[in-house]
């Protein structure tokens, strides 16, 4: 990584918009051969879009990408690979039914004459695995391979294409510490072979241990890039957070009442452990942490969707049985899930049906749902939520993302829950709708509802929550009062930065 060396990849002033959302604007990245380069940024900072541009999935709207001195041909995954860029996604995409050897060479199997050369592929992949210092049998099928081993196969695949740039998107997110060590060894190995390795991670300790350069992104732009020796954790965090937390969030003061939710020593093997907290009536508790830190798993367990093997959940002083969400609903709990398309809505059903689905008992007579009541219930809520739609009979998937989210909220608020759990309530919706959702949550809290809010957007958590709990790797690692919380403190706890 001599600075006077020629760059292998240069991205200049890249911009990319999706609809009205500007995902990249002024993104820059320079990679040198033989370096491990960290790409950092909060969720939504534009890292994924940048990676996908390099992978050939997206085309940038303006700006330039130069690879090995030539203009990079964009917009085709195959072309990206042929030009020497390999991207290893967080979830590797192997073919479970094919052998490892074939997985390495898939789509461009080695040939002897005009037929596939199986022995050659096995020999070559064995060589690649050895070169990476791992002991994998190329003749076994990929099904059942651990994520760590799948990544190794992906890296072998990258090497077999003579890739000069290897991008790893949060490769350590799902790995145990032993596996992380092995991955580091492999990455250093690649570095020594003069590859440029891009390493995306939220774990700052890893970044400082492994990488020789750091580039930080925020709001779609590159806000800093320097050798690791010139950086420290505080500096990086400051760059990542950057902006002032605006007073966009209409949080109203609410009187705290009785304890509504009490979670005692909740645990599920391999997912989370020792989760303890309380939520009072009128209180909004924010659950912060990185994606994959176990927040969604915890709230799913609290709501009774997933079982837990330790601890207990109490609602209004009553202990709840695990694994029975409908009993939790009756008891007064509601969960607005993270992925509304998958878990929150019946996409092709009408707005009316979706809004009323949690209330079927109340509006049915002898198991027949009264259509009129269904429509009235939906339109009442539609008014409160300022929902924009043509008729209640329209299917939900015709609505915008923000309005879909409102329908999900309507559906659950209609049950008049005592405890509302919202998981990423404003992901992917526009600023206007966002503040409407915030206004509504705040208003409900003031009326005495207890609210647990999972969110990866720090400003949102800090703007809305009375109290912030931080999770990392399935544990509660921090608790902050509204007044003491700063973005730097939360990120430091969430990433396990040691305060260097």
């Amino acid at each position: 990584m001599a600075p006077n060396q020629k760059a292998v990849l240069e991205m200049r002033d890249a911009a990319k918009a999706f609809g009205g959302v500007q995902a990249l604007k002024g993104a820059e990245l320079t990679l040198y051969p033989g370096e491990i380069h960290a790409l950092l940024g909060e969720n939504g900072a534009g890292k994924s879009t940048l990676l996908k541009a390099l992978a050939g999935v997206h085309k940038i709207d303006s700006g330039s990408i130069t690879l090995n001195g030539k203009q990079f041909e964009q917009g085709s995954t195959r072309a990206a690979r042929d030009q020497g860029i390999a991207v290893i996604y967080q979830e590797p995409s192997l073919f479970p039914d094919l052998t490892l050897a074939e997985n390495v060479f898939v789509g461009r199997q080695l040939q002897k004459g005009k037929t596939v050369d199986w022995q050659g592929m096995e020999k070559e992949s064995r060589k690649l695995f050895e070169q990476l210092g791992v002991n994998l049998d190329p003749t076994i099928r990929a099904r059942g391979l651990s994520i760590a081993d799948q990544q190794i196969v992906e890296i072998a695949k990258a090497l077999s294409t003579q890739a000069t740039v290897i991008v790893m998107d949060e490769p350590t997110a799902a790995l145990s510490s032993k596996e992380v060590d092995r991955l580091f060894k492999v990455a250093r190995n690649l570095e020594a072979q003069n590859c440029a390795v891009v390493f995306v991670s939220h774990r700052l300790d890893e970044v400082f241990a492994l990488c020789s350069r750091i580039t930080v992104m925020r709001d779609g732009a590159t806000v800093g890039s320097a050798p690791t020796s010139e950086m420290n954790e505080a500096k990086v965090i400051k760059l990542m957070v950057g902006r002032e937390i605006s007073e966009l969030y209409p949080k109203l003061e609410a009187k705290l009442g009785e304890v509504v939710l009490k979670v005692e020593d909740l645990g599920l093997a391999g997912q989370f452990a020792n989760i303890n907290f309380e939520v009072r009536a009128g209180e909004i508790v924010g659950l912060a942490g990185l994606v994959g830190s176990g927040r969604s798993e915890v709230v799913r367990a609290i709501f009774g969707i997933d079982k837990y093997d330790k601890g207990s959940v109490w609602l209004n002083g009553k202990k709840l049985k695990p694994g029975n969400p409908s009993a939790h609903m009756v008891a007064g709990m509601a969960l607005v899930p993270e992925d509304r398309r998958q878990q929150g809505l019946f996409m092709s059903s009408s707005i009316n049906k979706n809004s009323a689905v949690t209330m079927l008992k109340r509006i049915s007579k002898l198991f027949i749902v009264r259509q009129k009541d269904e429509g009235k219930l939906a339109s009442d809520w539609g008014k409160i939520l300022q929902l924009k739609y043509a008729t209640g009979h329209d299917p939900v998937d015709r609505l915008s993302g923000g309005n879909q989210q409102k329908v999900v909220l309507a559906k659950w608020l209609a049950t008049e829950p005592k405890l509302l759990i919202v998981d990423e309530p404003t992901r992917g919706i526009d600023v206007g709708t966002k503040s409407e959702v915030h206004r509504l949550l705040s208003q409900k809290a003031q009326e005495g509802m207890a609210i647990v809010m999972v969110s990866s957007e720090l400003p949102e958590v800090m703007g809305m929550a009375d109290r912030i709990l931080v999770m990392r790797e399935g544990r509660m690692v921090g608790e902050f009062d509204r007044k003491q919380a700063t973005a730097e403190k939360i990120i430091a706890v969430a990433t396990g930065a040691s305060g260097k």
Partner: protein
Amino acid sequence: MKNLIQKTLKVREIPVFLGLLIVVLITGTANPAFFTLSGFQDITLGVAVVATLAVAQTLVIVMKHIDLSVGSTIGFSAYLIGDASSKGHGFWYCMALALGLGLVVGAVNGYLVAYLKLPSLVVTLATLYIVRGLFNEIAGGNTITEDMVPKAINFMGLNTFFGIPYLFLVAVILMLVVGFIMKRLRPARDLYAIGSNLAAAELVGIPVARRVFLAFLATGAVSGLAGAVLLARFNTAAANSGNGLELSVVAACVVGGVAIAGGIGTVYGAVIGAVLLQAITMALGALGVPQFWQLTVNGILLIAAISLDRYLSTRVKPTSIMGTN
């Protein structure tokens, strides 16, 4: 040596093959007539049609698709061959007609599934009806009789090559050719990749739509040509020829280890599956079991096959950090 045994046991086709051996041994012991040359010829002749179609079906099932239109195509094609021949057209003309029909049906299936992204189950169910409907309209109440069948085809149906029925040889040769292609040619390997992980296949730049289209086209072509096998086998064809064959074909593939979930299976397995089902039918007959039981047994075998698959796939242990040990 131990390694070799372990490797052999891992081959998916082995359990089916062992099942076949057991059926043959038990039946043969109970009824020695089963062990004779004519017993062998009964099974192999009886299985020729289904085995031929099962080879073609494997192409689409490994892609996680299905082609239910093959029964209508093969029946219609058999009729067309007989009809054309009776009108004085030569053998090659008849075969070209059969191939043409198969290509048209395959192209329609392939286009709708590959390019319009319609589900193959529904598309081929629809073409099953459409082809059968056209067939009924054209054939009406006519029946192709033995004297209308082209000589060459008639000869193939009635004769053997060193004791092996020609029709079974046709199926075996097709199996060997397609088997070689699926193992050794890149485009055919793509079919496995598509069936195993469609999203990843697109990500690595496999031309998915083109491959899916070509596989349906090939399946259609074989089904069309196989009209000759059907005609040779029965020396007759009418508006109901080939009715329901598609289900026997899918059953043979599944029993033979071609996973309906895609990505795995070989034409060898499909053919062995077909032979096993046929052998069981014959065996139950030879053992004097009432005929309706054979369907029940086929059903049980299907469930056994997919259960075994499920068991084997859940039994795979995740590898440890140090790779496989």
